């Protein structure tokens, strides 16, 4: 689960990790009032959306007066912000963070991630802060410091010293830095983060270390034990159809194409999308109804696909294992009767109770196109939407 920068900074504050003084505004008037509360200029106005690269898209502005605060807030709020990570449509900005400007001497980079291949927790740091870290890693790998921590043993002072030494920090800063890293690690573990990134972590003229930015993502699998963090979920940042699907425990992702598809199992769903694409069409979504889906989930999945107005045809691909073909067929027939099918539907069934499933579909009297295998299914749906 993604959270906003201002929410990540709230988490930082509660873990005694220094962040600039700042407040969240939803209108230009608000922004001016809050800038006044900060007391001195410059202040920084930062768009709050769930995407990176905000600076590049014009979503971060520095203001030297209340007039400039108002103009910056007016330019950002209520409009879509396009960044390298949002796609061409951008994301509508509903909130800005109004923050105290700082006297910056140096910018560092720090992040913590779970390292899949070693099953250790990796701390990544660099003196090249404020830049795209993937680019730094590609062009100057020597500028990146990586330290692995066994989560059973936890963080030790040696780890912190190693990073501080790699960043060539002065002795007085190295002490502050180590204590900061320990707090960040603590936050990472306690809130089940899947990403914690500060870019940049700044050193000020007064030799303070302050998290100028904050990016935190929480492991979805751990949300059941992170009730305090759940309040940070912002459904405005999510696709409305995805929000609807999540109510039924459906794995649905809205995409740009026009072939809706419903598949059981994530791997098969991805492979089905690939087949649609290689047949010359574009998938409108990813939808994994899961191995243990029931009739209700199938029905809701089908309804959600059809409510996407871009969808010109639907491909249903089910390999019956735990999810039996007859259950799938019942769900589709019910959904079709309730919502009505307004586009052609191609169905490919295989596996457990396949004959029974085909009988139910045939007896329904609905206009469903059956495919004999995967290639046939992808070819048929591509032909239909290509007309």
């Amino acid at each position, binding site marked *: 689960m993604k959270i906003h920068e201002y929410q990540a900074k709230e988490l930082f504050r509660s873990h005694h990790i220094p962040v600039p003084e700042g407040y969240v505004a939803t209108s230009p008037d608000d922004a001016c009032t809050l800038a006044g509360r900060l007391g001195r200029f410059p202040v920084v106005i930062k768009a709050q959306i769930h995407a990176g690269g905000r600076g590049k898209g014009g979503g971060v502005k520095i203001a030297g007066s209340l007039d400039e605060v108002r103009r910056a807030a007016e330019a950002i709020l209520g409009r879509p912000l396009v960044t390298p*990570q949002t796609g061409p449509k951008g994301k509508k900005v509903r909130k800005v963070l109004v923050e105290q400007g700082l006297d910056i001497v140096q910018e560092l980079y720090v992040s913590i991630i*779970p390292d*899949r*291949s070693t*099953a*250790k*927790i990796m701390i990544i740091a660099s003196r090249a802060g404020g830049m795209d870290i*993937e680019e730094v890693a590609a062009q100057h790998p020597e500028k990146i410091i990586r330290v692995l921590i*066994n*989560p*059973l043993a936890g963080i030790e002072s040696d780890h912190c010293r190693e990073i501080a030494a790699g960043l060539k920090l002065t002795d007085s800063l190295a002490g502050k830095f180590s204590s900061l890293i320990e707090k960040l690690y603590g936050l990472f*573990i306690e809130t*089940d983060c*899947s990403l914690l990134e500060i870019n940049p972590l700044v050193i000020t003229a007064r030799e303070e270390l302050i998290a100028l930015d904050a990016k935190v993502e929480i*492991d*979805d*699998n*751990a949300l*059941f*034990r992170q009730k305090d963090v759940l309040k940070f979920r912002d459904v405005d940042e999510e696709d409305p159809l995805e929000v609807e699907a999540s109510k039924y425990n459906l*794995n649905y*992702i809205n*995409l740009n194409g026009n072939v809706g598809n419903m*598949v*059981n*199992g*994530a*791997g*098969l*769903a*991805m*492979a089905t*999308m*690939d*087949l*649609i*694409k*290689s047949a010359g069409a574009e*998938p409108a979504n*990813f939808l*994994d109804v899961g*191995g*243990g889906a029931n009739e209700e989930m199938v029905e809701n999945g089908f309804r959600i696909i059809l409510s996407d107005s871009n969808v010109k045809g639907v491909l249903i691909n089910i*390999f*019956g*294992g*735990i999810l039996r073909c007859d259950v799938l067929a019942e769900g589709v027939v019910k959904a079709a009767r309730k919502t009505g099918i307004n586009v052609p539907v191609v169905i490919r069934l*295989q*596996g*457990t109770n396949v004959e029974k499933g085909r009988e139910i579909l045939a007896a329904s009297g609905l206009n469903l196109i059956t495919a004999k*295998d*995967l*290639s*046939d299914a*992808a070819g048929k749906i591509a032909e239909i939407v290509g007309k």
Partner: protein
Amino acid sequence: MSIFVNKETRLLVQGITGREGQFHTRQCIEYGTRVVAGVTPGKGGQTMDDVPVFNSVREAVQETGANCSMIFVPPAFAANAIREAIDEAVDLIVAITEGIPVLDMMRTKNYLQGKRSRLIGPNCPGIITPGQCKIGIMPGFIHKPGGPIGVVSRSGTLTYEVVHQLSTKGIGQTTCLGIGGDPVNGTNFIDCLKAFEEDAETKGIVLVGEIGGTAEEDAAAYIREKVNKPVVGFVAGLSAPPGRRMGHAGAIVSGSSGTAQSKIAVMKEAGIHVCDNLGRFGDFCAGVF
């Protein structure tokens, strides 16, 4: 021959009295698996059909000599269940549970270091040696006993699709297993490749990957160095958008890493026969093997 499991395997099921646990235990028994015990804390002394239920893995192992455990425990308690089986030195632990927190699995994987047990999964369909034993949730009837192909995959239903096409073409399997769709898992591709390479009856290997992580790249490097048997590969997710978790927790393209395109390129370079049309997978394998 086969890898990891055969008709001698004595299975215990952790979480046997839950809905999923019961359903799949019955399916496994029907397939011929020797299910000797179940474990559900607080339900010791009961039976599930004819299978005795114990309060702990320790009791179950002591009483029945179980050497393999299949885990259906809910995500919040699954890591503890795995640890319990590790502590009793159960040879093989197959964790079906989906949705275990990543941090729990990182701890479990480090705990496993130097221990006797092998862990398959979590978030996996399990393992089957066709005609001998089925430990997991895959439909048994799609498999064809007798080999000569070993199948290893990060997916569930995609594996069924692949196996079904093999069987339809008359190509049998020695052992088929899913290593799971989570970012941190127990057994990896390389462990399975090594076992298949050493198994005399396995003449060829099918490896099914997907986007995210570097498991396919690591497997390709290993195959280039150590595997002499022919390998057919497939990677799902060519059309997946970056930064989105495609159902499996581990199936995510982060930045420019973990894409299907780059995995396929590395696999081809290592001499793996990569099939790019799932609809013709069976024909493709018939051509290679």
